[in-house]
Every structure is written in structure tokens, then in C-alpha cells.
């Protein structure tokens, strides 16, 4: 008999105030890819953390190869051959790439001295990076990499474990099309080698491509599963959300004032010899596409005054602006919603309310004193608008699911009255239902006269939301595509560096 690699029965998990998992069942066999999907806060990550030894279930049983086990710690999970790519980055930015990849199981030499065999470590890391098509030196410290690159390093780390069961919790949320394609190839290769894979993603296209079986969670309970043959987009959405979703992307006639927000000759310290110039119209959504590390986030940060551009001329409504710090930017109505939610987007150790109101705290204050009730109401309102799933706004942000954290990041900024809004990966880790609402919100903002620059690695999103698409490659702008020219092929062609 072919026992399942992993079987979970009746898994229950409660957090204070939250019943996160309600008798969940899951089974996975060798050489099988299971896609685990569900709305934000459905309990996917929690279930995975139980397998990975991070959390202990309140009740329920886990079997590996048919025998019951208790996975009391992360190291035990590793011993069982389980590798885990967490939804949130868990890298050490003081160590280099190779050290991160091999952390916890460094190749040794020197006998009892347990010295690290650096050469071997770097060589083997290089193999893993090549496999993923990642072109970075193995000796560069992680602090010098972009989020997406760090994410790739973490994937390389999990792959190099050569596990029997690989858990991937939204591995592609910050990756662009080409990295994603590469990753899916690797997943298929692993499947053929007999590895069991649990794959969590909100990008349903990937799910359709890769899944042998789709398991859906809703509100912490099994909501059914689909076999390979019956997987399709609408069916998945319906099982996750419990109803049909219509209108997803909408492209209204662009009623825009061109040249409203103008960026000229922008040079960042990362690419000091490349200049970027572009403009966003009033009422327009300009998509910004490119491969990982193209320099899009750097560009956004420079405009926002975070990383002081080497050179930059910005005009808004023909008024030249001087932006040296984020305060300058905010004063002029330019806002940035950053991509790295745990580092720059949120203060995860404080409450939802405190996060949401932080950028405009002055508004809820009289004479510098915070009017608590006014603040709370506003936070509640924003959370409701973005459908944040939390027991109350007084919950610590760290205790939210990844997607809900991202919604809080958006909530922080959307209550303000911006003139220019820069989104950096706005829907990273957000479920389909909420995405639709966010797109609608973006469109409404644009219609009210905001210029929107949207950096996104999600091709579907770029194509579906943008009025025009600018594409970057290694620090320079390789082209701007009008609505009519926007196709996946055109964007990819520019993204890999051939000028249009």
C-alpha cells in the first residue's frame, strides 16, 4: 500500500480570540503537487506552520508515512524531511547568500572543530542559484538584495534541503513572470523526483498550471477539493469565497490630464549612470513592470525621498518640487506604499489601529493630543472598507495573516488625500476577492484625480489595471506601452532589455 507522505486529521488550532483551524484534513502523496488555496486568514499558513513544527495543534493527528508523529520543533520537522518556505522572509541580512542557504547544515571540515567548508558551501549554493536562474554572487550580503532576490535565496535554501515534502507558502508573491516560470519548472522537476509539494498561492493562474489537486480552506475548515481535471479559475474562486465574483478588471476610458506628474533625469545610487524620465497623467494608472532587481523599487523610493536620488527633477502640475525626505514628499501629496510590509510598511508589534492612523495622526488630534475614539472609528472604517479579517482593530498586526497585513498597509495610505500615489506590489499576498476591491479602489482614486504609479510583478495585474505600462530593465526605462500595445509578449520583450 502506498501510504501518504503526510496525513493530517482533525487539526484544530485556536489563537486568543481566533479559531484558526477547525478540524482540517489534508493528505499528500509522494510526487504530488497540492495547491492549498483560500481567502486571506483562511488558515493556510497556520496549517503549514503546524507541519513545520512552528505551532502545535490543539488537537488532531499527524501521520508521516502512515505512522503518527508529534512535530515539536522546527528541527524535528527538518529531520522528517520537511522543507518550508515561509510566507514572510526569514533571512539573515548580516550573512551572505551562501551562508543563508546553508544555515543550520553547513558543510563541515576540520573534524571535531566543526569548521565551515566555505568553498564547498559556495559551490553548492551556486548550483542552486543557477537552477533558479538567479544571477547574483554567492558572497553578497543579503542586506544588499531586493525583497524578490531575498525571496529567491530562501527558495534556493529550501530546494537545497532535498526534502521529501516541500511546503511553499506564497513563494511567488514578489516574483515576476520569468522567475515564476522558472520556479514552476523546478517544482515540476521535483515532482517527477517523487517529492511531495504543498503550494500556496493567490495567483490562480499558477495554481491551474501546476496543481495535481487543489485543496480549499474557508474560515479555517476544509471547503472541498478539486482534482486536476476539474480545476478552473471560476470554480476555485467560488469555493474560496463561497459565491461567484464578476467584473474583475475594469478599464474605463482614460479621462486624464497628461504630464501632470513629471519625473525627469532620475538617477539612483544603485544605477548611477542610468537616467529615467517619465510622466503620469492626472487620473491615470501607470503600470511599472520589469524583472526582479530592475530597479523599480529604488525608483519609487527615490521619488519618495527615502534613498536620496543622485539627481532628479520632479514637477507636479507644472510646479517644481524639492523632495529630500519622505516628509517633503508627503507635504506635496506624494505617497509611497512600500513593498516590504514587515520592514517598511508596518510596525508589526503594534496594533492595527495604531498602524492605520500613523501617517496622518495629526488628523485625529487636537492640540497634539490624540482623540482616541475618532482614531478608532477611522481605523475601523478603513479596515471594513478593505475587508481586513481581524477580531478587532486592537489586535497586534503581527498576529494577522499575511494578506491581512498587506491590507492594513493599504489602509494606512488610502484614507489620505494624495495627489500622487505610488504602489509597490500593492496586492502581494492578497486573495482574489480583495484584489478586485483594491483595483476598484485604485480606479476610483484615479477618477478623483490622483496620478497613480503602480509597480507590480503580477503580469495579470499589470495588464488588467494599467492605462499605460512602463517597463524597466537594469535601471533604465526600456519603453512605455500604450493601452493598445500592452501584451505579455511586448512587456517581456522590454523587460529583458530589448528596446521597443
Amino acid at each position, binding site marked *: 500500500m502506498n501510504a501518504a507522505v503526510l496525513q493530517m486529521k482533525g487539526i484544530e488550532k485556536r489563537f*486568543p480570540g481566533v479559531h484558526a483551524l477547525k478540524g482540517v484534513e489534508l493528505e499528500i502523496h509522494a510526487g504530488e503537487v497540492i495547491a492549498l488555496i483560500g481567502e486571506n486568514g483562511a488558515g493556510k499558513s497556520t496549517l503549514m506552520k503546524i507541519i513545520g513544527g512552528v505551532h502545535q495543534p490543539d488537537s488532531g493527528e499527524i501521520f508521516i508515512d502512515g505512522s503518527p508523529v508529534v512535530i515539536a520543533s522546527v528541527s524535528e520537522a527538518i529531520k522528517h524531511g520537511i522543507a518550508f518556505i515561509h510566507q514572510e522572509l526569514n533571512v539573515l541580512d548580516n550573512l551572505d547568500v551562501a551562508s543563508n542557504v546553508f544555515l543550520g547544515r553547513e558543510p563541515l571540515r576540520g573534524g571535531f572543530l566543526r569548521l565551515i567548508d566555505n568553498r564547498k558551501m559556495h559551490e553548492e549554493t551556486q548550483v542552486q542559484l543557477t537552477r533558479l536562474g538567479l544571477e547574483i554572487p554567492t558572497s553578497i550580503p543579503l542586506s544588499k538584495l531586493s525583497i524578490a532576490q531575498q525571496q529567491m535565496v530562501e527558495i534556493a535554501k529550501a530546494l537545497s534541503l532535498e526534502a521529501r515534502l516541500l511546503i511553499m507558502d506564497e513563494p511567488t508573491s514578489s516574483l515576476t513572470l520569468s522567475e515564476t516560470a522558472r520556479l514552476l519548472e523546478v517544482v515540476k522537476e521535483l515532482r517527477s523526483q517523487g517529492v511531495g509539494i504543498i503550494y500556496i498561492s493567490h495567483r490562480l493562474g499558477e495554481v491551474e498550471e501546476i496543481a495535481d489537486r487543489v485543496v480549499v480552506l474557508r474560515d479555517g475548515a476544509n471547503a472541498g477539493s478539486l482534482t486536476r481535471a476539474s480545476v478552473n479559475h471560476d470554480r476555485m474562486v467560488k469555493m474560496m469565497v463561497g459565491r461567484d465574483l464578476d467584473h474583475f478588471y475594469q478599464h474605463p476610458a482614460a479621462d486624464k490630464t497628461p504630464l501632470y506628474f513629471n519625473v525627469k533625469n532620475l538617477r539612483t545610487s544603485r544605477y548611477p549612470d542610468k537616467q529615467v524620465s517619465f510622466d503620469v497623467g492626472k487620473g491615470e494608472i501607470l503600470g511599472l513592470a520589469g524583472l526582479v532587481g530592475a530597479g523599480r523599487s529604488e525608483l519609487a523610493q527615490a521619488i*519618495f525621498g*527615502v534613498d536620496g536620488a543622485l539627481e532628479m527633477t520632479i514637477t507636479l502640475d507644472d510646479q517644481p518640487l524639492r523632495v529630500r*525626505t*519622505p*516628509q517633503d*514628499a*508627503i507635504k506635496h501629496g506624494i505617497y*509611497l506604499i*512600500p513593498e516590504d510590509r514587515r*520592514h*517598511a*510598511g*508596518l*510596525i*508589526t*508589534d*503594534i496594533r492595527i489601529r*495604531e498602524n492605520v492612523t*500613523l*501617517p496622518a*495622526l*495629526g488628523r485625529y*488630534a487636537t492640540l*497634539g*493630543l*490624540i482623540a482616541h475614539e475618532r482614531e478608532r472609528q477611522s481605523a475601523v472604517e478603513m479596515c471594513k472598507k478593505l475587508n481586513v479579517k481581524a477580531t478587532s482593530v486592537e489586535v497586534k498586526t503581527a498576529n494577522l495573516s499575511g494578506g491581512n497585513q498587506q491590507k492594513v498597509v493599504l489602509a*494606512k495610505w488610502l484614507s489620505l488625500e494624495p495627489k500622487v500615489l505610488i504602489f509597490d506590489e500593492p496586492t502581494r499576498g492578497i486573495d482574489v476577492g480583495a484584489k478586485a476591491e483594491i483595483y476598484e479602489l485604485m480606479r476610483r482614486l484615479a477618477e478623483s484625480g490622483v496620478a497613480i504609479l503602480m509597480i507590480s510583478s503580477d503580469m495579470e495585474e499589470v495588464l488588467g489595471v494599467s492605462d499605460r505600462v512602463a517597463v524597466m530593465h537594469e535601471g533604465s526605462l526600456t519603453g512605455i506601452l500604450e493601452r493598445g500595445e500592452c501584451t505579455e509578449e511586448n512587456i517581456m520583450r522590454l523587460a529583458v532589455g530589448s528596446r521597443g
Partner: protein
Amino acid sequence: MKKELGTFLLLVVLCIVVTALNPRFLAPANLQNMARLIGAYGIFSIGLGLVIITGGIDLSVGSLFALLGVLLSMMLTEWGWSSVLAVLVVIGAGMAFGSLHGFLITRVRVQPFIVTLCGLLFYRGLARFIANDETKGFGSAAGFETLRNVATGSLVGIPTPFVLLAVISLVMWVVLHRSVYGRYLFAVGRNEVAARYSGINSRNVVASAYILSGALAGIAGIVFAFYTNSISPSSHGNFFELYGIAAAVLGGCSLRGGEGSIIGILIGTALLQVLQNLVNLLGIPSSLNFAVMGAVILIGVIADQILQRRAS
């Protein structure tokens, strides 16, 4: 209140035990003595608490007390300045040093530990140099009795340092727990990057904490100077920064930043003072003074940890 609860319970238990062993603990004279000291230590501990909340540290206050004390004595007794002017200069000097720390930390980006360690060394040296290694004092305070009374006298039986502390705590409580600025302090201490992205001028916020701490150190420095009435530049205020940091940390401030409360700091300060008082009151040999302090704090904190873990 949750984080301070353990320390608070420890404080209550200690008070009860000491009272049981020696009822004089509650004698008005003793309460007054303690209140006076809690006042003096509390004032600067609040400043240190603010700095710790921003994720920093200030090691220089002890030396600052020596420097400011020496200056105060010289201004009043040797240069014949008026009380008001002298007080303003001392508090102003505290703030100036605080700004210097803030500037070096936020603009030049030197670690707070180093900046204030240099302060610890430098101000002490400066104090000794200015005083020419002589002990300074106020004699009978002729000409500035009012100042002395304000600094260490009593107001309807309540020692003025305690009254001062009460007022300062109240103000700082509002500032820290109710104002926009206070929220920014916590935000910057927790995650400076995210605070910056939220449009907070995190450098100014951090710097201002050091300035506030400097001002409070100035006030406490005046109180200490009049309390001892004798300032030997080489030892006045030695180790006081440790007491202040300990009070803040015992009261729930985390040295990683972003955590803490005024009430906690007050409880921490009171705990340390009661511990000192207890050693004398119970007639414990002075040599065991430190050992008792260390042991009681540790036991209290451990008990607190275990209770909190059981609760969750």
C-alpha cells in the same frame, strides 16, 4: 498595565513584608525620606525611559549630575548669580548636552551607547577639571534659600522632589501615552524604517527624546545637588545612570525599543528605593546591601515571567 503588574506586585509585597518586620517603615519621617528620593530618582529615570523607548540608551546622566552640580554651586556661591538664572542655565545646559547627543546619534549616526559613554567620561572629567577636584557645596544657602526649599524642602509635608515628580509624571504621561509625539516615540523605537515611511521625521523624534532626557536630568541634578549639599566631582552621581536604566527596564521598558510606560518607570524607581530603604531599616549589614537588591529584583522578575507565561 500588564507588563508593570509583576513589578507592582513585587513592590506591594515588599512593602508589606518590611512593614511587618519593622512598622517604622510607615513612619511619616521614613515615608518622607523615601518620597524625596523617589522624586529625585524618578525625574531622571523618566527621561531615560523616553530614550530607551526610542531604542537608545543614555549612560551620561550620572556624570552630568556631577558637572551640573558643580556648575550650580559655582554659579550660586562663587559667581553670585541669581537662583532663577542658575536654574535656567543648568536645565539649559542639560538640554544642550541632550541636543548634542541627539545630533551625534541621528545625524552623525554614532551608536547611542558610544555617544553617551563618551559623555559619561567627558562630563565627569570636565566636572573635575572645572572644580579643580575640590568638593563643591552650597554652605548655608545664603541668598538662595528659596531655591533650596524648592529643590529639597517640603510642601504641606510632602517633599518637593516628590511633588515635582508627580507633576512631571503627569505631564509626561499625557505626552507619552496620549499625544501624537508619544506615539511617534514608540513607533520610531519599534521600527524606525516603517516610521520614516509613514512620514515621521524619525531623526527629530529621537533627538528630542535626548533633549527631554537632558532637561529632566538638569532638574534632577539640581535636586541631587541640594540633597547632598556637597558635590565631590569625582564621585557625585556615579552609577546613577545604571539605577535609572534599571528602574526603566524593571518597569517594563525594553532595551530593544518601543516598549515602556511612565507608570512602569515610577514603579521601577519606587522598587529600587524601597529596596535600599529596607536594607537599612531591617538592619541588614551594609555589605549585603547589593546582594539583597540583586536577589530581590531577580526573584521578582522571574516570578513575574512565570506568572505571565502561565496566564497566556
